[in-house]
């Protein structure tokens, strides 16, 4: 494993393992309502649209659009050193389905709201894969 920067990791359990471990198969996964096909995020036991309880993880394409971002310069988490990009991306499959994430593999001149991005994964300990996003055409 190559040297990776320190990163705080999520507490993984039955309700969110599909999200944080999907990267092992290269998949970005969300809970999806099997009745009305709505993606549900963050994970919940009931579909917020039709109130069905039939929810299962499904993979999305991993393609998204940059909704907004910040280039952060301040050290908030010891060991996770600035500068770094924090972004909110909107997943292609459903308007309003958003993730807060880090943008990687891009220079300041590249970053524009609306730009196309795709998921990539950073493998961490305990089977956790952190979904990150990079320019689609990189």
């Amino acid at each position: 494993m190559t040297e990776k920067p320190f990163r705080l990791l999520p507490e993984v359990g039955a309700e969110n393992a599909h999200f944080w471990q999907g990267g092992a198969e290269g998949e970005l996964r969300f809970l999806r309502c099997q009745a009305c096909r709505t993606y549900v995020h963050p994970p919940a036991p009931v579909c917020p649209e039709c109130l069905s309880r039939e929810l299962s993880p499904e993979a999305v394409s991993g393609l998204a659009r940059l909704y907004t971002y910040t280039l952060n310069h301040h050290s908030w988490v010891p060991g996770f050193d600035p500068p770094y990009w924090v972004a909110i991306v909107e997943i292609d499959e459903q308007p309003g389905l958003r993730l807060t994430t880090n943008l990687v593999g891009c220079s300041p001149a590249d970053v524009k709201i609306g730009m196309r991005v795709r998921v990539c994964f950073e493998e961490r300990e305990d089977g956790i894969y952190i979904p990150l996003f990079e320019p689609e055409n990189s």
Partner: protein
Amino acid sequence: MAKNANRKLARQAAITGIGQSAVGRRLNVDPLGLTADACLEAIADAGLCRDDIDGISTYPGGGIPGAPGFSGAGISDVQDMLRLKVDWFCGGLELPGQLGSVINACMAVATGMARHVLCFRTVWESTAQGTGPRGGIGTGGGGRFRAGGFMQWTLPYGAASAAVWIAMMARRHFHEFGTTREQMAQIALNARRNAGLNPKAIYREPMALDDYLEARMISDPFCLYDCDAPVDGSTALIVSAVDAARDCRKPPLLVEAVGSALRGRPSWDQFDDLTTMALRDASAMLWERTDLKPADVQVAELYDGFSFIAMAWLEALGFCGKGESGPFIEGGNAIALDGEIPLNTQGGQLSAGRLHGFGLLHEAALQLWGEGEQRQVPGGPEVAVAAAGGGPLGGCLLLRRGD
């Protein structure tokens, strides 16, 4: 007639007294002592004695984990310290912003649960974060820290502060509406100008646009001067039932309407419109419950934990159009003490310190009573709005001076 007029709080609750402790950086004094100073001053300001107080309300209350000094005193601290005998009390964090606790007090007096409610908020962040070891987020637990709940979606990405989340809202606003840093700077410059007239403000030395533009970046587009200043201090006020307010020393400040709505998702990244969030809904509710209009407001004390939030409140409350806060504040004249809508007249949280919403409401009351001294808005203002919170948290009150 305003929608929901039969259900509005108008003229059932009033602010009748205010108090504030010393406010400063690293005061190194007991936060409960600061709280006592503020509470006793508010009770005396209303012309009451402590036996008149039959309710207590605060945000966030005691026993709250989180940033050191975030809660300098809880309900039971104050009740026991002053040996208050109360019929109603309430402290909590899950509210429509910090002033949600004052809205609760309004409901308590409007429904007859109490007659005079002592509302307070004490922060002690400057001393608490400036003395003990600064562990930093996630450094406890021998490296086995794991983020749960909603923090799992942000902490792994170093998005560990509202500065980061709200910077992204500002960036989206810049994108949609062409807003610039030079425009946003006016929130900080206006605050600093007003702070120069406030002996209790933290940062009083003049600041120019160049000082702002050259400041250290925190989370782009926010620089240091877009972020409020942690302080020690306590603010208190008395909310009275209007019939009981007649016993008080000063003209009651009638609570004309309040806004507490949250009609979108309570989430920092999933809310439908990140350029406004809860502020949109709280503001809409406030205007649904009064016949007054934004043009009737003569003083605006709007939350500026980060500069952009005050811009979002200006838009949400209708002092300018949606997306138009940048051009509206450009040059600073519209929001100056003698401007169209005087804003954050004591220096806001950016220059007068992060009293967490309560400092803004305190200032609104002070202006309506004509006690602003050097920074008094001219013309004897009779209507003011105070608003606190940002992101998925927002609450606001419209005050009108009574006879």
